[in-house]
């Protein structure tokens, strides 16, 4: 596909995703044709294979947040995990401006090289803090992890950086040396965000960051995330089934159903005037 050696990514796009697909089981053209929103399933009735995501395309610029909405099983988290490297993808390309000026498809990198990206290029905040944190380690220790991975070897400097981050994410500093297992859900999520920002990554992926928190706590965490997005010029992808989250954090979003993107729109537009019947259903459900 790349005919020239010039960067295939424009300076505006921090993340460029093209044709990203993920299958479980053997897939042929027939399986693609027999699945999707028209058929009401991501599972091919003949082979039993699953088309978890097919031909997902989007760009995200620095300072921009893109939302991925859809119900459970629509493939939105799969897309995020394929970009993060938590899951191998089946096809497509992901180019990151921060890696080799966007010339390399990071999906082709070795697992080790992809893990390296996670140190200071790309962070993920998971719905379940246990996935992004070591619960038996202190809040400060959880931040020391990415810092030491990036080569920090000065104890005091690590303490100062951890303190700054926890302060920024509104974790009481007297809890810095407590293990995260003893924290409330909202506080754990704040620690996870602090850890994700430790090495100033240009890209942050948020997977249902406030799902599972009660409403008042969730709104506090959302306010925090929004403040950070405005301040830090990050390129962000937010996966959520909750339009409240998408509305608050993102400028653009894509709607996924049964592994396919059914709509791609400005967030305001989507909420005012959804085009696809599934989007209309989602928006109506969220507004009622």
């Amino acid at each position, binding site marked *: 596909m790349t005919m020239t050696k010039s960067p295939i990514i424009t300076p505006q796009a921090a993340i460029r995703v093209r044709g990203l697909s993920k299958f479980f089981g053997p897939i042929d053209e027939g399986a693609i044709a027999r699945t999707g929103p028209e058929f009401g399933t991501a599972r091919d009735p003949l082979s039993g294979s699953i088309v978890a995501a097919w031909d997902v395309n989007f760009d995200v610029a620095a300072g921009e947040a893109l939302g991925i909405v859809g119900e459970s099983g629509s493939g939105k988290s799969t897309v995020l995990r394929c970009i993060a490297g938590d899951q191998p993808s089946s096809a497509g390309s992901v180019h990151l401006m921060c890696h080799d000026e966007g010339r390399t498809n990071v999906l082709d990198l070795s697992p*080790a090289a992809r*893990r390296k990206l996670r140190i200071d290029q790309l962070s993920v905040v998971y719905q379940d803090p246990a996935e992004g944190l*070591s619960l038996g*380690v*202190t809040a*400060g*220790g*959880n931040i*020391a*992890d*990415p810092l*030491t*991975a990036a080569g920090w*070897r*000065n*104890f*005091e*400097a*690590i303490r100062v950086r951890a303190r700054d981050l926890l302060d920024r994410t509104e974790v009481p500093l007297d809890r810095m*040396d407590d293990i995260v297992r003893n924290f409330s859900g909202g506080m754990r999520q704040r620690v996870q965000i602090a850890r994700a920002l430790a090495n100033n990554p240009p890209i942050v992926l948020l997977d249902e960051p406030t799902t599972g928190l009660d409403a008042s706590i969730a709104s506090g965490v959302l306010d925090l995330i929004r403040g950070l997005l405005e301040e830090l010029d990050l390129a962000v992808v937010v996966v959520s089934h909750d339009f409240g989250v998408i509305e608050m954090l993102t400028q653009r979003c894509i709607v996924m159903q049964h592994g396919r993107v059914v709509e791609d729109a400005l967030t305001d537009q989507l909420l005012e005037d959804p085009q696809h019947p599934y989007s209309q259903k989602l928006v109506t459900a969220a507004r009622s």
Partner: protein
Amino acid sequence: MSSTVDEIAGPPQSVPFALLDEESKREIRRALLQAVCIPGFQVPFGSREMPVARGWGSGGLQISLAIVGVNDTIKVIDQGDDEGVNAVNLRRLITSSTGIEETSETDEATIVQSRHRIPEDAMTSDHILVLQVPVPEPLRGIERNMKELERMHAEGDYSKMWVSLYEDKVRNGVITQTTGYPCLVAQRYVMATTPIPRWDIPRLHQAEFLTLFGAGREKRVYAIPPFTDVEPLTFEDVPFEVEASNGAKCRLCGSEETFLVETPGSESRWSCSDTAWCRRKRTK
């Protein structure tokens, strides 16, 4: 003078030189060669059943038996003591199956097998130090998943080890780990220096002698070749410190500059851990 034991044992059978059969010794030596080539890397080997229980130095014993030759002289210490029961047993096993000389003087020995200490006397390229290791995996207490451990070593991803040092310092104000302090070997692998005390760690750095580590129960050998960098993992602003005995002296020889061990009692009494060194100092 025939005893019951002799009658049960039957006529004497020929025991191979150094107890192990030649193929077994070759297998251990091949593992050791690989270990020397990749300093600090744990090499699996086919740990044999030995006439000592696993956990009693069977790994070190197998290394000594695999490398010993007719012209070698062996010194075996346990916690610095040549007369420890286990040291005596292992030394007897080695000398009786090889006919080689034994000694308690480091400079007379060519192979020094040890648990928990490096002899106080300087060793040279004429020596090989064999250490008995209970837990060869430095990340054991940090990560349980074997696949993940392999990955961490392969990628040199030791951030979890650093986090554990950070946590230790935060909780206790100092880094409390004493024996088995983790070290980075030749800028590549983190290695457990178990079971020697911190006191002996600086003596491994750029040492003239070859050190071989054997873990019989865990079926691993690893090595530090001569003149290899061995750096204890420590934060820049938290200097690595060896054990301090706060001005204590050996009650026997009066030494202050050796590694001292405390005898518990109503009044604490300190003495040299290296008994051969201490004795020589007193007789001079």
